[in-house]
């Protein structure tokens, strides 16, 4: 060390030592105004550009006004405003190559499919159906996790995965309290306050329909940890799907049992404000079907879509050696015809089973995802249904997730 370096060191320390107290941190400016306004000095060349932009804006406004004045224009606008925006992010869960007991979670943008966050969750396994669910604000996802242990009874813990506006995971924390049983299906209420779930006492996929808890639907209050339970008093049917109506009060429950000749489907609309007890006593039967999936019937899990006026359901029709995949909207009001939202002939021969395909709606109920959940699915791509078409969801074309939500 040279003399001059010594001098610099001692001088800067002595100078810095003259400061020994500072004022405390005041975060008021951020709390009062979350986003700082960056005001840049206008440059000269921006003036003609701004003038040109103003003229363009005026012309665009005039064209839009003229369009709105026409009957077709008004109709189109009404439809556009009724449609909530498509979710910005979606989350997937897959078992990595290492196999079960670890879940690989990814957050992706629905436009372009870019991965914005990725993490692994240890000692976690899938339920029977979709084990991810999303709340309405597009910033909170929930998963159910249960470790595989042969020596202890299965316990499921729910986790809330919060993401930022840029799609990064900002936190994963337990929600509510752990519940007994192995998770089979789950759905979080649109406001993210209640978790509807079904669980069976088995462990690591060894649970069976018909076990004591099979006909039971539970709702866990995520803030208090209180669990309310409704029991199917008629039969020990197996829930095959849960979804919330956009009102946040009606829980749509698909239950089916294999009756003679084919699956027997009942779709309940449970009033969750009701007292606990019998599922039948507090529900409306929205849809019922007995018999085989033969092309004129709905035989697969449903999701509600729209403001309480319709169900969206998945159907399969036999078409020679192939299967036709249909997504239909079924009005709840009697006498109204159903609408085919999507129809496609599967290229998989002899496929009539819908067990390998899932339907999942966003919390608004308007944006429906169709996704193959297994190797035997008749559907070859994950995508959303709009305008009679399946729009492939970017980023999941090659590897189908075991769970998906948006």
């Amino acid at each position: 060390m040279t003399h001059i370096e010594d001098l610099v060191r001692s001088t800067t320390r002595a100078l810095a030592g003259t400061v020994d107290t500072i004022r405390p941190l005041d975060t008021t400016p951020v709390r009062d105004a979350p986003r700082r306004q960056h005001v840049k000095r206008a440059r000269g060349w921006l003036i003609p550009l701004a003038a040109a932009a103003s003229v363009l804006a005026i012309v665009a406004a005039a064209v839009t006004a003229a369009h709105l004045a026409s009957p077709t224009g008004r109709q189109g606008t009404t439809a556009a405003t009724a449609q909530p925006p498509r979710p910005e992010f979606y989350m997937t869960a897959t078992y990595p190559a290492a196999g079960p007991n670890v879940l690989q979670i990814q957050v992706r943008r629905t436009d372009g499919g870019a991965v914005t966050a990725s993490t692994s969750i240890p000692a976690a396994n899938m339920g029977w159906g979709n084990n991810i669910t999303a709340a309405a604000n597009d910033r909170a996802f929930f998963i159910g996790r249960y470790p595989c242990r042969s020596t202890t009874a299965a316990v499921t813990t729910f986790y809330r995965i919060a993401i930022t506006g840029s799609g990064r995971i900002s936190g994963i924390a337990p929600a509510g309290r752990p519940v007994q049983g192995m998770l089979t299906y789950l759905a979080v209420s649109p406001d993210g306050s209640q978790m509807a779930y079904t669980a069976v006492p088995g462990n690591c996929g060894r649970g069976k329909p018909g076990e004591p808890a099979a006909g039971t639907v539970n709702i866990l209050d995520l803030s208090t940890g209180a669990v309310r339970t409704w029991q199917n008093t008629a039969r020990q049917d197996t829930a095959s799907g849960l979804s919330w109506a956009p009102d946040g009060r009606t829980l749509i429950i698909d239950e089916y049992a294999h009756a003679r000749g084919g699956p027997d489907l009942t779709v309940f609309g449970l009033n969750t404000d009701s007292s606990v007890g019998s599922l039948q006593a507090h529900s409306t039967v929205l849809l019922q079907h007995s018999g085989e999936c033969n092309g004129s019937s709905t035989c697969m899990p449903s999701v509600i879509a729209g403001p309480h006026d319709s169900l969206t359901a998945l159907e399969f029709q036999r078409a020679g050696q192939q299967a036709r995949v249909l997504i239909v909207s079924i009005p709840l009001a009697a006498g109204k015809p159903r609408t085919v939202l999507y129809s496609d002939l599967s290229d998989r021969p002899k496929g009539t089973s819908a067990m390998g395909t899932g339907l999942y709606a966003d919390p608004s109920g308007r944006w429906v995802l169709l996704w193959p959940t297994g190797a035997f699915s008749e559907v070859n791509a994950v995508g959303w249904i709009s305008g009679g078409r399946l729009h492939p969801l970017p980023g999941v074309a090659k590897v189908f997730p075991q769970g998906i939500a948006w």
Partner: protein
Amino acid sequence: MEPAKTWTWTRPHSSADAVTALYEAHALGLVRLAVLMTGDQGSAEDIVQDAFLGLYRRWDSLTDLPYPLAYLRASVLNGCRTALRRRSRADRAHYLSEVPSESAEARALLSEEQRAVARAIRDLPGRQREALVLRYYLNLSEADTAEAMRVSRGAVKSATSRALASLGRRLEEGQS
């Protein structure tokens, strides 16, 4: 019954808690750094407050920030540069007459030689002053100094060497 928190991946604090804890741990040091760069405590405190508010504001998007202190240090240096740029020449002349090295407290604490060094440091170009302060006041390595200044290690080496040479010349001139 399995405990509720068998596994969790979450940031240790809320943004407010985390930034407040960082402020308590590092703000004084950063204000001292800013005082060495700008020369007055009022500006230095404003700059450091701004750096912490910036961190608070972006906390959610900075989930992968491994070393918040390095981020803060770079923010403070940037704030110092902005503050110095904003000062008009006249203001700077006024300000320079009241740098801490000439205050009553500094006169009591600093020797005549150290005050000469302080004046010489004050007159160095900004980058050279930054390199000197980071290397000899904070004892940062060349790599860390380069990261804080957002320049290459070579640039740090060069700035430090020139600064020391310049100081040597100034002090020799003062003695002669």
